[in-house]
């Protein structure tokens, strides 16, 4: 039996070597051994970081909540926050992640939870939480996850090439040319902002198929038919809308609010800002704002504070501060928004408690 065990051990040597390389180059600092992750904004990094060191205040949502400078947030609020938002997170995933966070940290007392027309649309039924939870709670599932191994190998290759790796920032360098269409016509918004609305139209559960022409881009991703898209957008009516609220998720938010009230967690629903193009050519043109109002009223009825920058914006941000329709420019706009959202808000600060 010892001989068999020795043979098996010898066979495992290359695998052990591979995992040694994996642990050195994995970009998520999964085991908390490296003092920081290369891919800081990945859900693996964030949820693992939270499991290793849970904070009492959390942010949840998709990419529009994911890129805050958390040091700035800490300065503004006087406390540490865990940012559990990640790009592409669906509403169902954010809700499940909330409950996971609450389960793992009985001291959780503050939560900023993103709500948006986009994440509440009926077309989005994704829920990868089972997979995510397996990945973050089971080291073996992580070690053998194909995507994670591919990311590790990618990181290894980049490091060997001397490329600086790390999270990317949405930072644009716009000029007047970005406000000119393919026919020389002046555009009210940048070409990429117009193209972004077209992307949203095609996302499923927003507008009927074929409402807008296809977006044409060059090899660098620059949009070539912004003028054509704008013309189509200007003639959109609510009849083109395919939007409806995911009532199950809305009800889940109401239940989440009740859960927070019961547990004394200071919950705030945040409707994140969108640029003027989205306001005009999507929310108003398709009549989605009315549905959003209903959502807001439903959530307000739970007694939960709401910070609304989308439906009836309490602050309107200049279009120049946005990188695209949904996301702030990391240099121009994000810090601005962070201050507005976190500064001077009692519920964001230490010890806030709505009471049981």
């Amino acid at each position: 039996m010892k001989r068999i065990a020795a043979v098996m051990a010898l066979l495992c040597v290359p695998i052990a070597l591979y995992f040694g390389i994996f642990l050195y180059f994995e970009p998520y600092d999964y085991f908390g051994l490296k003092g920081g992750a290369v891919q800081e904004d990945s859900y693996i990094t964030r949820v693992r970081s939270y499991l290793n060191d849970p904070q009492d205040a959390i942010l949840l949502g998709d990419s529009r909540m994911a890129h805050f400078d958390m040091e700035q947030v800490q300065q503004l609020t006087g406390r540490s926050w865990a940012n559990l938002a990640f790009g592409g997170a669906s509403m169902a995933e954010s809700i499940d992640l909330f409950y996971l966070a609450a389960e793992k940290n009985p001291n959780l007392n503050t939560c900023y939870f993103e709500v948006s027309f986009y994440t509440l649309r009926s077309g989005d039924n994704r829920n990868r939480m089972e997979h995510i939870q397996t990945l973050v709670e089971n080291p073996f599932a992580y070690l053998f996850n194909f995507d994670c191994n591919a990311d590790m190998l990618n990181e290894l290759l980049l490091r060997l090439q001397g490329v600086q790796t790390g999270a990317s920032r949405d930072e644009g360098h716009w000029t007047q040319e970005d406000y000119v269409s393919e026919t020389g016509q002046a555009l009210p918004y940048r070409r990429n902002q117009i193209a972004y609305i077209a992307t949203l139209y095609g996302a499923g559960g927003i507008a009927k198929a074929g409402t807008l022409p296809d977006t044409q881009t060059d090899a660098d991703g620059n949009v070539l038919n912004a003028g054509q898209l704008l013309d189509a957008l200007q003639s959109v009516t609510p009849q083109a809308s395919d939007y409806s609220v995911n009532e199950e998720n809305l009800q889940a938010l109401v239940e989440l609010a009740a859960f927070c009230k019961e547990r004394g967690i200071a919950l705030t629903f945040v409707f994140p800002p969108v640029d003027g193009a989205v306001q005009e050519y999507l929310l108003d043109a398709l009549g989605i704002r009315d549905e959003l109002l209903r959502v807001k009223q439903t959530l307000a009825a739970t007694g939960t504070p709401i910070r609304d920058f989308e439906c009836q914006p309490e602050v309107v941000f200049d279009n120049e501060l946005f990188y695209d329709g949904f996301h702030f420019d990391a240099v121009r706009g994000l810090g601005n928004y962070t201050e507005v959202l976190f500064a001077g808000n009692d519920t964001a600060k230490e010890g806030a408690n709505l009471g049981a």
Partner: protein
Amino acid sequence: MSFNTLSFFVFFPLCAVAYFRVPGKYQNAVLLAASWLFYAFATPAWLPVLIADSLATFGAVRWMARAEGPSRKRRLWLAIGLNLGLLVGLKALAVALAGMPMVQPVLNVLERIGLSASAQRFSLILPLGISFFTLQAIGCAVDVYRKTCPAPKSAVQFCLFTSFFGFISSGPITRAGSFLPQLAAPRTFHADKAASGLVLMAQGLVAKVCVADLLAILANGVWGSGAGAVRAWSGPVLTLGALAYTFQLYFDFSGYSMLAQGCARVLGLELAQNFNTPYFSRSIKEFWRRWHMSLSSWLRDYVYIPLGGNRKGTVRKYVNVLLTFAMSGLWHGTGFTFLIWGLLHGLYQVVGAVLEPLRARLYALLHIRRDGWAASIWQCCITFLLVHVAWVFFRAPSVQDALYALTAQFAGGSVSSALAQAWGIILSGFNAKPLLAAAFAAFLAVCFAACFALDLVRRFSSHSVQGEATPALMSLGTGLRWLCYYALAGLIFLGFLFNNGYLTGAVSFLYANF
């Protein structure tokens, strides 16, 4: 817990160490405890039923063995009725209760105790291996009745015969006469046997993890998850999807069987071979001597022969063949598609027998040797095609989908567009990263070729023993042998990676669903 999960990789060595460390008289008890623990991981709610069925059958068989004449026969029917009733009753219950609306708290409780598969509607989880351990128990009862096997003396041995983790989930269906005598004497550890068993397990893992599970991506992409999903495709992409399933099923099940045989061999027990390169068969009759051999021999001995076999005239023989294969179909599943699959195979054999004189005359007329290489290749191709067509019914969620899949592949579309669509299915599984998808396709091709080569060795090599490639591998020189070991380990490791870490929540073996 399944053979391709991390928990099994921990469970099995611990079990083997405990098994060989205890004094010989306790080995069976240790193995039985381990088997029940294995069962409890899968369907814990049904463990009492397995134990009760085993003990009840043991009692019934021993009671039968004490009688003679009509009384003996009545007691035999009691033993058969116990197990057949359990098998048919639970399967009928599952069908009757499927989708039944229930109040949520009740559903939650049923899901928590492992009786229901769905949190929204009731979906009965059947006991793991019910189709296998009931047939084994029935087989034992009939063998004891026929006096071809002595009645089991030890309840522990008999319970181990019905519950052994090596074969409970998907066979091979083992005969009491071959397994119980092995349990009668203590087993000692043999390094050579253990090595042979581990190599066999490695081959099984390659077949399952590196080929079957990866082919499943393509097969499931075409067949979808519900009735009608296959209608999104047409042309040769349907052929590709059907072919993918044909090979997925083979490598999945044969891989499992190798794992079962291998882990039993490590423990000093020999199980019957279940697959012997069936896709190299030259006739449907030969196919059933090579595919799921334990089931086909069971059906022959306990259904076909008792029905009269070929002893009551030609017409009756054909009826018996059709009935036996109909039963085989229903054993696999309760839908019409399974029945049609079974009847198709029966029909193939009947038509084959009827046309045999014509075929013989044709070969003679064309001056072709029937056992020559050209004729053999032709026969293999035709047999494969017939089997492949039947598998379409086996896989399809409905008869209409099966017929659609069989006919629409000729409806148009080129091979290039089919390959493009298949590539699209693979690409979607890799978030549209072409390099990774290409690596996946290359890896699958390499593993498929490796398994095909091993099958060739099994079929044609003089070093293969009873259709196993392991002796051929073990007879290689040290350097080449270790290269093969590392190659197998590397392929298994990569296979698990491509399957996205399925050590922890393994893709189940297909035959565990029956």
